[in-house]
């Protein structure tokens, strides 16, 4: 049964020429990684583009995946880099988006009890973090990674990552308390 197969088994099948087996890997990692891309890039369209790009790059380089059993971690590393690239490329658009959000933020505050509005406030606050702080925060608190794992993934030292997470938390508290005190 395909769903029960390990990543290494699926990767081996793809490398033997079974292209359709790659769909199992897409199905396995799509939703979890879409969440990270969405939070990093701030909108669904860019997130899907980055995720699709990560999957196709992973396929193209599959023969160079050194540990197929950890295909998911390898794919995630590719996705993190794609999000960095996409974020840098769209920096200007992002700034416009954030600027427009200020008006929306005020509008959403009219219904603070609404959980959807609360989630939107968090999303907007997230987009206002510096990209490296947002990345560190998401890896730590949403993807539930340890600092050593984050360091391996991002190539950034543990102490720098701790600093980024701390600053991200401070900034999020500040932004969200602004919303509630407004």
């Amino acid at each position, binding site marked *: 049964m395909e769903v029960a197969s390990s990543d290494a088994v699926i990767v081996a099948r793809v490398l033997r020429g079974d292209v359709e087996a790659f769909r199992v890997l*897409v199905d396995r990692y799509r939703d979890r990684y879409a969440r990270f891309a969405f939070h990093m890039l701030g909108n669904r369209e860019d997130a899907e583009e980055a995720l699709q790009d990560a999957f196709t790059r992973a396929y193209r380089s599959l023969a160079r995946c050194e540990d197929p059993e950890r295909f998911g971690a390898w794919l995630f590393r590719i996705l993190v880099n794609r999000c960095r690239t996409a974020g840098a490329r769209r920096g200007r658009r992002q700034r416009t988006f954030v600027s427009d959000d200020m008006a929306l933020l005020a509008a959403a505050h009219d219904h603070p009890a609404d959980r959807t509005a609360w989630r939107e406030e968090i999303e907007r606050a997230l987009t206002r973090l510096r990209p490296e702080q947002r990345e560190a925060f998401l890896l730590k*608190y*949403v993807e539930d990674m340890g600092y050593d794992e984050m360091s391996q993934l991002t190539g950034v030292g543990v102490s720098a990552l701790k600093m980024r997470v701390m600053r991200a938390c401070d900034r999020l508290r500040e932004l969200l308390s602004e919303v509630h005190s407004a």
Partner: protein
Amino acid sequence: MKNIARELRAPVPVSESFDARVMDAVRSMPRYGRLGLWSRLTTPRRRTFTITPLTLGLIAAGIGVFALLGAAHAYVDVNRAAKPIVAALGSKKAEPAQRVQFVLVAPDAKKVAVVGDFNGWDSRHAQYQAQHRGGGVWSVTAPVPVGHHRYSFVVDDSVWVVDPSAPRLVDSDYGVANSALLVEHQQ
């Protein structure tokens, strides 16, 4: 902060066409080897060629010319024929170097150098010191002779890092991985 994280852990569904788009992109790329080398050599495959009478005539004429030249060449003395070959080998020039760009993302690095068989694995070689281009990206463009090479990055004079964008080769002497590079003649 944990409350915020809990909200952010909610699933983010992708559009229904996402899987199809990924698979379409993947199918358009070269497929990995379905058959082994032996199977590929021994499995019969059907090929269809279309050829015009004019093309067929030109091919036949070409074969005829080659046959005539081959027959004429058979009369040439073997010793005389060998000389130009030796001369050609003797006058072989050193392969020219091509300029190659090396790039490494190392946000925490203070210094990055490229070492390889083309610079004697010398991390102090002036031409192979990478410059920081911002955002943790280090790069250097330096001459590398035409041919196959092994190389690596040396970060902060101490840490050897293989090029994540290049194929890896395990060094037979030390058992450590290096990156592989093929520099070709410029067309």
